């Protein structure tokens, strides 16, 4: 079975009045059927732009695909027209967003919104569509679905709205679900519910999920593989286990160290990363993490390191992997 999604050397930039901002600078990754891949990074690293470019939802201008391909089920999305994309969106690839209030139409009843989605993709009759809509609400554990379908989004709580979003996204049983920070805006107890729901749905339908988040706890809970993004480029990729237990890239390590854990000792200090992420207008020539890296070397400033595989599934892009670096770093490992 071929890969469901394969992104090859994707580069996406924005044309602004003062120049080009390179949001995504040549990244490659894949997603297989039935798996959950977490795309991790902080704000400005390009993960949202990546997600939106898979769905071709970026405003074009000012955005443009600088180079690269996005193969979905073997076909290159970058080459597809808007009309072709409309058939794919909501049908084969769905997306759920961070703030469900702005992605749901506040003037339309919830049931109606789902019914519209169903009719558009399935061509069912209105009555059949209504029945299916209620089924969907039930699937996402909205209590009293018949009653709730007749309400407006503002009558739902944050968690409920997110469930509606998931229902809308799952209407046509998509192959791929892109979840862009789906639980960031939710309370912790509600987040646990939503994550559970997403796992149930994945078990039931075999949907692949790209989970975009900066919350490492959520990543540990849900994902099979993890991709770490920084400054528009990919720093490290591996299975969840590999990334958490044996992180190779200094950024990944620092990220893990800067998150306080419920089960850690309180007297341990929190490691932070000094400074701020790089501005992608006139991005740095070398490794984007150079300015903030404790182990940076002279070569890191102007030269971008290549991928170095540690196992079949785990690689990192860092000059520390280079044989010539071993001497310099010996004895100064964290």
């Amino acid at each position, binding site marked *: 079975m071929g890969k469901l999604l394969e992104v090859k050397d994707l580069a996406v930039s924005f044309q*602004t*009045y*003062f120049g080009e901002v390179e949001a995504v600078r040549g990244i490659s990754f894949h997603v297989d059927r039935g798996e959950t891949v977490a795309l991790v990074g902080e704000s400005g690293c390009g993960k949202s732009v990546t997600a939106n470019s898979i769905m071709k939802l970026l405003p074009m201008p*000012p955005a443009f695909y600088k180079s690269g391909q996005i193969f979905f089920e073997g076909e290159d999305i970058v080459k597809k027209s808007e009309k072709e994309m409309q058939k794919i969106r909501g049908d084969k690839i769905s997306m759920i967003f961070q703030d469900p209030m702005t992605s749901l139409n506040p003037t339309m009843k919830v049931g109606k919104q789902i019914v519209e989605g169903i009719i558009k993709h399935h061509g069912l009759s209105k009555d059949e569509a209504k029945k299916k809509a209620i089924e969907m609400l039930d699937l996402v554990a909205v209590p009293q679905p018949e009653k709730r379908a007749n309400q407006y989004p503002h009558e739902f709580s944050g968690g409920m709205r997110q469930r509606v979003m998931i229902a809308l996204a799952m209407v046509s049983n998509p192959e791929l679900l892109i979840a862009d920070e789906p639980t960031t805006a939710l309370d912790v107890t509600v987040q646990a519910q939503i994550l559970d729901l997403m796992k149930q749905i994945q078990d039931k339908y075999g949907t692949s999920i790209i989970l975009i988040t900066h919350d490492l706890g959520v990543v540990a809970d849900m994902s099979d593989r993890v991709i770490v993004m920084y400054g528009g480029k990919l720093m490290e990729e591996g299975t969840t286990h590999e990334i958490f237990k044996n992180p190779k890239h200094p950024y990944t390590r620092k990220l893990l160290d800067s998150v306080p854990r419920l089960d850690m000792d309180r007297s341990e200090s929190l490691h932070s990363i*000094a*400074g*701020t992420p790089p*501005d992608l*207008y*006139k991005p740095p020539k070398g490794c984007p993490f*150079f*300015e*903030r890296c*404790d*182990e*940076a*070397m*002279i*070569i*890191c*400033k102007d*030269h971008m390191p*290549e991928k170095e595989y540690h196992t079949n599934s785990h690689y990192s892009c860092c*000059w520390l992997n*280079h044989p*010539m*670096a071993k*001497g*310099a770093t010996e004895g*100064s490992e964290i």
Partner: protein
Amino acid sequence: MDHTAYTKDMFEKVKRDEYHADRITRPTISYWADVWRRLKMNKLAMTGLVILIIIFIMSILGPYISKFDYREQDWDKINLRPNKEYWFGTDELGRDLFSRAWLGTRYSLLIGVAAALIDFGIGILYGGIAGMASPRLDAIMMRIAEVVYSIPYMLVVVLISVVFSDAGSGTSMFVLILAMTITGWVPMANLVRGQVLALKEYEYSLASESLGASKGWILRKHIIPNSFGPILVNVTLTVPRAIFAEATLGFMGLGLQVPKPSLGTLANDGLAVMPIGIFYQILIPSILISLIMFSFNVLGDGLRDALDPRLRQ
């Protein structure tokens, strides 16, 4: 990539200083400079601005360029079409329309801008106080404003003009302006109040309050500076209304004292000769009024777009 091209010394660690990590690299652009840049991109707004600048300059210089004084009557040269001597022609008293038209523009602009500025002043004060006041005081103030505004504007203007003017010879500029501003300040007050209500809940206002700032302080330092955008747009759009109002008054015969011209009175004079087939006398002031209004409007619209944060590129 050729690995052998790298030398061992390139793998030496870099020395670090904290400051590096917090540098700001993007070129800075101040808020108003950015607004101006966006405004410049709007061709229509720029056209309006250019027209206004030309009209403004002419309103000052116009009467001096022409060799005729605006009051000078030459009964041999009445109702002449625009020609080489009288560039805009003459009216039925033989007066040079060129100097009258530009002087009239000057007065109309003066009145219009003055009225708009007074509205602005009263509006900011009233709206600012209402917005910051307790809900009860606010409600009272707004009810009063509503009542004032519901008085038919023209009625007030006409009444005041009639009461204060010397019948037949027109009204003084002061009275005209007074008449126009009596009810005209309400929309501005509403706007300012709306801004104040919104901005006083912003966290920087709350921060100021938690530091012990008085309401006046917060209004002055935080809210008004941040409301300037919409307020400026409103002022820009109020001016043409005021000018049109003055023109209407002049048109109805309640305009400036004779022989002072205004665009309205000129139009009125021009109306009188239309039955005998003379059109340029009404056309010229009408065109000027239209140009001024058009320009202020597109400029105001352009400003509004340039200030809108959502349209930022």
